[in-house]
């Protein structure tokens, strides 16, 4: 009797338990269900917010069709989708080594922006004065150096004085933005702070295929290289050990400071490549908005893919797909640019939320009681 009373007092309606083994099939099904549910909720929200929809509910088909239309309806859109995905993938690759080490680097935005600035600095001062192929190499090297330097500063502080890397890398983003503003003031004496497209330093497209094909192939190669680096090299293994436990790493003779700095240099170099692709391959210019928040989106891409470079192809593809679809909705339904953000936000909320249900389960009192009775 007393025992029964005890359980009824202490047992809540339900409690959470971490799943010990995650069934991959079940996990995949949950993820798909989450995306479907997210899309349904998006439809409902859109129905409430978009005038054209609630006046004409038959257009709900068009609404969902926008997602397909945004990325796949024309050849140009398909290539643009692949290009967006490649740039996002490149920045996501850059944040990954540090994340695997549990070094929370949220400075990819600034590191990439510095990469763009590095490339454009060369194009601005040497464009037309040195042969184009030489300029392209100088731009590439400058982008790598700028990106790596911007990444290694917080890493040095972390390694030497154990400063908080999240805050430090975040602040470096703002500093990078102001550095770009500063150079725009110097470079554009008319005062408009708009550099415009430069005449020199364009990464030439491949002699065949689409203009964006080269960028896509470069990122594909980087993806494979990073996968091999993280999975099959000693340095990659050291990153994982430091990520698991700094103490274990120290005990097994790994120089943790060295690993932190080296890994952030790798991150910075990859951001530099992304900056080069944006600066030389696409915009041929720099603005404070050149990276456009992709440095932050990359964090979600990398995290959703469980820090696996190959899986990131799927997640960066998903995010780019959602973004183009949402922009298409804004265009076709003639609604404010804020609505796409709401739509992408809702879907991301479901995708991220479902990870909770994959890793945890609810244990209800009733079933617990039954188990106890047995």
């Amino acid at each position, binding site marked *: 009797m007393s025992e029964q009373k005890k359980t009824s007092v202490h047992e809540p309606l339900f409690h959470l338990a971490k799943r010990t083994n995650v069934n991959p099939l079940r996990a995949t099904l949950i993820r798909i269900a989450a995306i479907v549910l997210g899309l349904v909720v998006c439809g409902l929200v859109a129905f409430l917010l978009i005038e054209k929809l609630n006046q004409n509910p038959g257009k709900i088909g068009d609404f969902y069709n926008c997602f397909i239309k945004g990325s796949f309806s*024309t050849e*140009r*859109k398909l290539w*643009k989708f692949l290009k967006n995905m490649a740039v996002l993938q490149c920045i996501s690759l850059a944040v990954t080594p540090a994340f695997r080490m549990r070094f929370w680097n949220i400075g990819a935005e600034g590191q990439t922006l510095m990469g763009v600035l590095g490339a454009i600095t060369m194009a601005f001062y040497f464009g037309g004065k040195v042969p184009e192929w030489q300029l392209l190499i100088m731009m590439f090297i400058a982008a790598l150096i700028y990106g790596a330097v911007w990444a290694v500063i917080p890493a040095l502080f972390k390694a030497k004085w154990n400063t908080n890397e999240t805050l430090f890398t975040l602040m470096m983003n703002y500093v990078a933005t102001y550095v770009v*503003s500063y150079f725009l*003031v110097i470079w*554009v*004496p*008319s*005062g*408009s*702070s*708009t550099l*415009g*497209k430069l005449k020199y330093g364009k990464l030439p497209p491949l002699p065949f295929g689409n203009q964006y094909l080269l960028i896509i192939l470069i990122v594909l190669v980087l993806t494979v290289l990073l996968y091999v680096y993280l999975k099959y090299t000693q340095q990659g293994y050291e990153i994982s050990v430091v990520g698991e436990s700094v103490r274990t790493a120290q005990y097994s003779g790994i120089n943790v400071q060295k690993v932190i700095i080296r890994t952030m240099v790798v991150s910075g170099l990859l951001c530099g490549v992304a900056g080069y692709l944006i600066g030389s391959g*696409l*915009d041929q*210019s720099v*603005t404070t*908005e*050149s990276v*456009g928040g992709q440095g932050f989106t990359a964090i979600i891409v990398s995290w959703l893919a469980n820090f696996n470079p190959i899986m990131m192809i799927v997640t960066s593809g998903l995010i780019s797909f959602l973004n183009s679809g949402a*922009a298409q909705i*804004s*265009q076709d339904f*003639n609604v*404010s*640019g*804020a609505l796409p953000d709401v739509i992408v936000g809702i879907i991301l909320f479901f995708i991220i939320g479902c990870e909770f249900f994959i890793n945890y389960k609810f244990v209800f009192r009733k079933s617990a009681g039954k188990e106890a009775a047995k």
Partner: protein
Amino acid sequence: MKKFVALLLVLTLCLSACIFTASAEIADVKLGVILLHDENSTYDLNFINGVNDAVAALGLTEEQVIMKRNIPESQECTDAALDLADEGCTIIFANSFGHETYLLDAAKQCPEVQFCHATGTMAHTAGVENFHNAFAAIYEGRYLAGVAAGLKLNELKEAGKLKGEKPLMGYVGAFTYAEVISGYTSFYLGAKSVCPDVEMKVQFTGSWYDYNEEKNAATALIAANCDLISQHADSMGAPSACEDANIPNVSYNGSTVASCPNTFIVASRIDWAPYFQYIVNQVAAGEKIDVDWTGTIDTKSVVLTEINEQAAAAGTAAKLEEVKAELLAGTRKVFDTATEGFITVDGAALASYMADVDTDDAFTPDTEAVADGYFHESEYRSAPYFDVRIDGIELLNQMF
């Protein structure tokens, strides 16, 4: 009789055919609009309203207009323009200064489509047949708004309510850039035309849209004894600072009377609807679009909002009508260099000024702009190029 009926029928048929073909041509036009931001920015909202008004006036259908919002000043702009061309647009318009080089790229790739760019400077030198620039002589609108400000200062002066000895205005600007310099100078000259001893302080924010910075700048100017504030920046920062401090405000881009009922006097703005109508009509008729199109008071591109009688000085409306008529008739010039003491630089009259009209990498001044007793603003190209620092205006900082 039969003949007459037949003739009538033929005539009616011809006539309806004519009307039909004319409207069919309008119906063939498809307008694509590229916007830097969306409705949340007063700058972009002004363009969206312009498109909607033009669509209503021309009777275009929904399918004939596509708007792409939040397009950054990068390769994205070229992509967006080419995508609009894929969708069958015959005119593609972009609204931000930084879009220009990217839109020009798209124009070179699609010679059969007309490309129009607001606020740009390159069309008259680029040599690309289907690429055009447009702006409005907004300095005339600002001059008129300045007249309203000057009248208010006179009223304060007579009532003995000036904070200092001389009437002092404050101006919140975005960048130290020709468009802004031309704007605040014409505003100042408008005020000076009715209130000769007025002076002005200008504070730059270094951003086209930053609510907090603009509010801080306005508050600082008010604290520095300014009797009236105006601004050239896109947020509600300066107007709301004025309402809080009960200081009269002359606004820009649109009326702020709803949130500032006690302090809003009047605002000048560019109405883009006439330009949109113009380009659609030109393309429908198979005519060329001007390389540089400058909207004026006459084309109804430069307009003033309703005057808020509660804040404005008595007789403002009548005075504005009078000055407007003089500007229209050409008897009054905004940048009047002939009248002694009206425009001076370091105490001397402005007899000659080389302006940077043709865009080049080094920004070299290339065109003499002072002639016939006035500075010829927006005549050699549509975008403003008046960037003279004149006496009476003190720049508290510079932001490029």
